[in-house]
């Protein structure tokens, strides 16, 4: 870290929304070549602050200085001119255009008025990419790139416009652990070249790994700034949440009972007909948690969808308490007490335009007491909603508040509350804490353990290896549509599982042969 004067200072930034003070006199400064992490729970005000910096929102009060000069940033064009670049969590790319076309969009290199010089643009982008060590062909269409590569296109886009201050909004939320490591490498290279980086996150380990300084925001206020050397995960979590958070799940021994779910020889294809699950056998017993570890995209989604009736397997059987339920509809699976927390809560788990009340009965709205024949019973729905809001600590002004108004963590609590209440024989969890703040993660984990202790069979799929390790009684590793290994929780080693996730059978074979294996290349 340098002691050079800050390139960016934000002073006493205040922004009020109706009923909310999103930013309350926030002070912030970034020095040249520094990675500043902005840490805070969902809804703490991080994104609002960055949108102010990028000219998407106007602050009610406060001052922004760039290179010591007061700067008024009216719109993103202003921000770009002043060397501020932003990589949004949801990429702003046009899928059907090439990398080069996306990068130059809005700043086209032209031969003459209205005539695009794509060759020159491609040349310049190729040079830029080489400097950064990106292996990206500017002529590839963006929809053919992986998520990690698309993110690099976003970074290219910002740098192409001359960004000296790069803001990354939760850049790792969509990445695999490997891609996360790679992007960290990229950030370090940028940093070495003098680019300042603001890294927004709520993941403690990542922030500690990459940042030079960490500024923690809670409920619109800066509650502290630390360097990684002088702090640890526990302290950061406490600053962020405002109370002590237990990062380790308190989990007693499991008492497994009869098998509830038995899958034999299951094959499932995705929408395009690619076989994603290629012969899986597994068993989950009542009162145990089976965790499936794996890098995203190895067939987890298809496996889970086949289990809950959203996707028809191409071969194999699914048995529930001894009954063949292969290919049954979602409704039929629900009626057999199968509950499901989907990976994408906004796409599947919630209707964002509905009040929380209706979301809390989304899957059993048709059953008594929520319906009497063809008529809905709103009173019963209200009552249930109030119970669940209290029981699951969903922080909302009212049960009539729309789900879209809640923070990510509270949205997920709505889904978890709905799926974890009532009788459940099988609970399927797909990425149950993705994009959820630490406080809510702790709460959701406790609910899952409670479910297990109430003799529910739990199948947990997660791309967060730590989550699988912490919660599971048994752990299976999925690689390219097959389970390549299964461990009991007490004999599972982090390193070994990481290798299996990355390399599948090859790693398994090497291990059994006793060959010393290095880091996956």
């Amino acid at each position: 870290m340098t002691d050079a004067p800050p390139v960016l200072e934000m002073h006493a930034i205040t922004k009020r929304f109706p009923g909310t003070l999103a930013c309350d006199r926030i002070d912030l400064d970034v020095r040249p070549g520094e990675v500043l992490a902005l840490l805070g729970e969902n809804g703490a005000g991080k994104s609002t602050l960055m949108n102010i910096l990028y000219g998407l929102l106007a602050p009610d009060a406060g001052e922004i200085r760039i290179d010591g000069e007061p700067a008024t940033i009216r719109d993103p064009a202003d921000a770009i001119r002043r060397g501020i670049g932003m990589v949004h969590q949801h990429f702003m790319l046009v899928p059907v255009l090439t990398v080069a076309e996306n990068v130059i969009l809005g700043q086209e290199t032209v031969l003459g008025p209205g005539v695009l010089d794509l060759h020159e643009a491609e040349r310049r982008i190729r040079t830029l990419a080489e400097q950064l060590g990106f292996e990206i062909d500017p002529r590839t269409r963006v929809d053919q790139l992986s998520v990690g590569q698309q993110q690099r296109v976003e970074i290219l886009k910002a740098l192409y416009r001359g960004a000296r201050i790069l803001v990354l909004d939760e850049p790792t939320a969509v990445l695999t652990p490997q891609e996360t490591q790679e992007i960290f490498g990229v950030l370090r290279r940028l940093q070495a070249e003098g680019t300042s980086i603001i890294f927004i996150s709520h993941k403690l380990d990542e922030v500690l790994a990459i940042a030079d300084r960490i500024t923690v925001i809670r409920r619109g206020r800066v509650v502290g700034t630390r360097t990684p050397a002088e702090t640890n995960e526990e302290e950061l979590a406490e600053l962020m949440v405002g109370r002590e958070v237990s990062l380790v799940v308190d989990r007693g021994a499991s008492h497994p009972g009869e098998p509830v779910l038995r899958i034999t020889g299951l094959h499932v294809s995705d929408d395009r007909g690619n076989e994603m699950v290629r012969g899986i056998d597994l068993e989950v017993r009542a009162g145990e948690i089976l965790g499936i570890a794996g890098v995203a995209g190895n067939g987890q989604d298809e496996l889970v969808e086949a289990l809950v009736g959203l996707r028809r397997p191409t071969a194999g059987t699914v048995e529930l308490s001894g009954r063949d339920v292969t290919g049954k509809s979602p409704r039929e699976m629900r009626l057999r007490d199968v509950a499901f927390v989907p990976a994408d809560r906004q796409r599947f788990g919630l209707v964002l335009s509905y009040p929380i009340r209706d979301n809390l009965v989304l899957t059993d709205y048709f059953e008594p007491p929520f319906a009497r024949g063809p008529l809905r019973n709103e009173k019963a729905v209200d009552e249930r909603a109030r119970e669940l809001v209290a029981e699951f600590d969903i922080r909302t002004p009212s049960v009539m508040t729309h789900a879209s108004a809640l923070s990510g963590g509270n949205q997920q609590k709505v889904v978890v509350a709905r799926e974890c209440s009532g009788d459940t024989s099988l609970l399927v969890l797909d990425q149950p804490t993705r994009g959820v703040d630490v406080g809510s993660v702790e709460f959701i984990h406790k609910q899952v353990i409670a479910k297990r202790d109430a003799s529910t069979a739990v199948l947990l799929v997660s791309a967060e290896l730590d989550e699988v390790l912490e919660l599971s009684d048994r752990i299976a590793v999925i690689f390219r549509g097959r389970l390549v290994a299964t461990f009991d929780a007490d004999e599972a080693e982090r390193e070994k599982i990481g290798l299996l996730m990355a390399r599948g059978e090859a790693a398994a074979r090497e291990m059994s042969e006793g060959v010393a294996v290095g880091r996956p290349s």
Partner: protein
Amino acid sequence: MSGPTERPGLRDELRAQAGGADELAGVDPVADSETRDTTAAAPARTGPNIGERLGRAWRASAVPILSIVLALAIGAVIILLSPLATGKPIQWDLPVKAYLALLEGAFGTPAQWADETKRFNAISNTLIQSAPLMFGGLAVGLAFKAGLFNIGVAGQFLVGAFAAAMAGATFGSLDTNVAVPLSLAIGGLAGAAYGFIPGFLKARTGAHEVVVTIMLNSIAVVLLTWIVNDLVRAEGFSFPRTADINNAHLPILFGRNLHAGVLLAFAAVFVVRWLLDRTTLGFEIRTVGANPNAARYAGIRPVFIITLTMTLAGLLGGLAGSIQMLGVIGYYAPGITANVGFDSITVALLGRSSPLGIMFAALLFGVLRAGQALMQIRTNNQVPIEVIDVIQALIILFLAADIIVRRVFRLRAAKGALEGEVRTVTASWGEQVAR
């Protein structure tokens, strides 16, 4: 830094609910000393009071109402300038004259009000004009709720009208109490069948309902023209038409011509409202419209709901045609199309797809349609009835480009006027329905 000050009632209540849990982190920071007076949302336990309800109603209807105001204002300018086209001087009182005549046409002139037998004639006419638009508006609005854009009311209207007229002609000799319900049912079912086709095709094959319904509109026009010209033309008339419906005329409830179909239209508004708000089927329709993926996840079958909703929309469109036949015209003749089909889309958009909104929008359009003739007459043909079409078009323009309305009237980002509808119109192109 000072801790946030609590908003007493709400905070305590939430705290109680949360079992004395610690502070309210997760939510967007709700309360602060400076903001505690703002009501972010209705508290959980106490129902909204009248003031809040009115406020909410205004927020929901501000953009549509102001769109109408703006369209009428621009309409006034057009009226003012219209004499220039024929080389006449501007008359400053012409817009006032025209709009007054429009109102008299819709609600009755002083002379009519003085005569007891004619007192309600104008209002009857307005209601008669509104009724098919109510049915048609519901046909579009209901489909919007399921995320479908039903442009096919024109076709459903014609098919329903023809079927009702044929049924009337066939069963016209029976008792009215039998002939009318039978003809209405047949007209409605024919429309339902015509709505089923695009619904089924959308659900099964992903064929976009907009394309299919536009095609079906043309098919209906041409097919029915041929059928009436060549197959079922009634003897003894100078133009192709179906036979008289005799006893299948809808009973006249009041005055000269206020037929029972008007009552049915109002009833339909409340039936659809009840369906959407109070039944599980309505919940399923709205869920499919709001998030088809979540609907499937929740065990709802979008394929079934989409087909059913389009069928119900077709039923409503068919009934719009049926009451025109059985209540107003009395026979089917090619070229009766009227504009009901497309005006229905405007009505649904203006009513923001809510049944009550559609009812008011249809009444407004009834006023415009019933009053336009007198407007033209009173202004000695200087203001042609086509001005009303211009005003209608302006209303749609302002609804779609609601930012104009908000700028003009300094409205704070009210929830977008047509968010859901516009999404429906633009988003689903080429998408396969989730199975």
